[in-house]
């Protein structure tokens, strides 16, 4: 137990910070994932086949290739890709990216593919009558979406989004290649230094279980809130 002490003698404080990092990366990745979903879900539901294809390639490739490969590919090729994307917006200088951004983006891309599927499924299960009624009310397309369709989509999506959250949270264990010190990497370091892998990896499992448990409690509260009136 002294191994877990806070301060210089034990690994407690490092592991605590690593847990915060895991949470930070997971949340950032989810948000980045939502941004991707915001682009690709409409593409998937569009009436233009070519746009459908682009979105389908994204979700199929990212969900069909192991996360390790996506992360490696992103880490090794991502810097160039980001610079390429930025140059589209007119920013041509060399870009420096730190490990947190790289890691969150890598997981975010993966998370986004799953989120895209979830949102697509949710929108497709909203009763068609809702769309018609919204149109009939004469509101602008924007308000139609935000005030009528979006809240309903969220309610339907929350159970599956909680699965995406679990996947994202566990995927953060794979980004040690970017050097980011989250739970898995810190346990790895501690295990190597103390030559006690059993203790530290088991403790890492406990930490992840704790995060899973707390997430479930929070998400249940969210579900209740969004199901009000149903």
């Amino acid at each position: 137990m002294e191994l877990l002490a806070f301060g210089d003698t034990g690994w407690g404080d490092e592991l605590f910070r690593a847990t915060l990092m895991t949470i930070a990366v997971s949340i950032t990745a989810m948000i980045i994932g939502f941004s991707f979903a915001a682009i690709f879900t409409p593409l998937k539901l569009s009436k233009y086949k070519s746009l459908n294809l682009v979105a389908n390639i994204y979700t199929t490739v990212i969900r069909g290739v192991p996360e390790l490969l996506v992360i490696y590919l992103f880490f090794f090729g991502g810097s160039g890709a980001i610079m390429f994307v930025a140059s589209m917006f007119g920013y041509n200088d060399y870009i420096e990216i730190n490990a947190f951004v790289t890691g969150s983006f890598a997981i975010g891309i993966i998370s986004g593919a799953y989120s895209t599927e979830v949102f697509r499924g949710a929108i497709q299960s909203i009763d068609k009558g809702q769309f018609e009624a919204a149109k009939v009310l004469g509101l602008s397309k924007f308000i139609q979406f935000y005030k009528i369709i979006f809240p309903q989509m969220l309610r339907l999506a929350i159970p599956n989004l909680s699965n995406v959250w679990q996947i994202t949270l566990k995927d953060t264990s794979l980004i040690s290649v970017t050097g980011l010190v989250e739970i898995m990497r810190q346990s790895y370091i501690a295990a190597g230094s103390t030559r006690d892998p059993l203790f530290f990896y088991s403790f890492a499992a406990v930490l992840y279980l704790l995060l899973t448990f707390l997430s479930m409690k929070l998400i249940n509260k969210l579900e209740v809130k969004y199901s009000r009136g149903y």
Partner: protein
Amino acid sequence: MDFELMVASFPKLLNAALITLKLLSVSLIIGLFIGLLFAILRLNKNIFINKFAYGYSYLFRGTPLLVQIFIIYFGLGQIEYLRSTVLWTVLKEPYWCAIIAFALNTGAYTSEILRSAFQTIKPGIIEAGKSLGIPNKIIFYKIQIPIAIRQSLPAYGNEIILMMKGTSLASTVTIMDLTGVAKYIISTTFKPIEVFIIAGGIYLFMTFIIHNVIKFLEKKYSFNS
């Protein structure tokens, strides 16, 4: 883009894909039995058995597969006592450590899939069986299980694909599966993008095959025939 490298590494990666498939199939078969067992345990009336099965499922679904593999491979390898028992002949090999981790992991997810399939079987079917005088055991084995398996096909197909991606973690414990060989080629040629395109392509192809086989099975065993 180094096409020469892509062509040269293709056969090596294809060979490694066979190892991936071997890992996948063995893990799935063992995992299916584990899943069936724990799904049944979960439906048991006894609260201790119920909670125990739930605990197993929660443990393996709530922690990353990477942690599970590391505990089994490095963690168990550390225990001096284990090394002197007959278990060591199994745990010594990275291949078996990986299979154990994968099987336990997929077993947990499979048990959830099967459990929910069992619970959504229309009670009418079981009642019909009982009214025909069929003993409970036979109802279970000849009616409930086949129906549950049929209903689980979509979700289980998903699980197969998730497990195939999971096998890539075998590369973290020295196994030269598709991902392991890909990493090796990259470390000697320093050309990550070309290699990952081929390796990723092979994974996608396997996903495609699995997806279509499951779709075919779904159609074949659907109730609308």
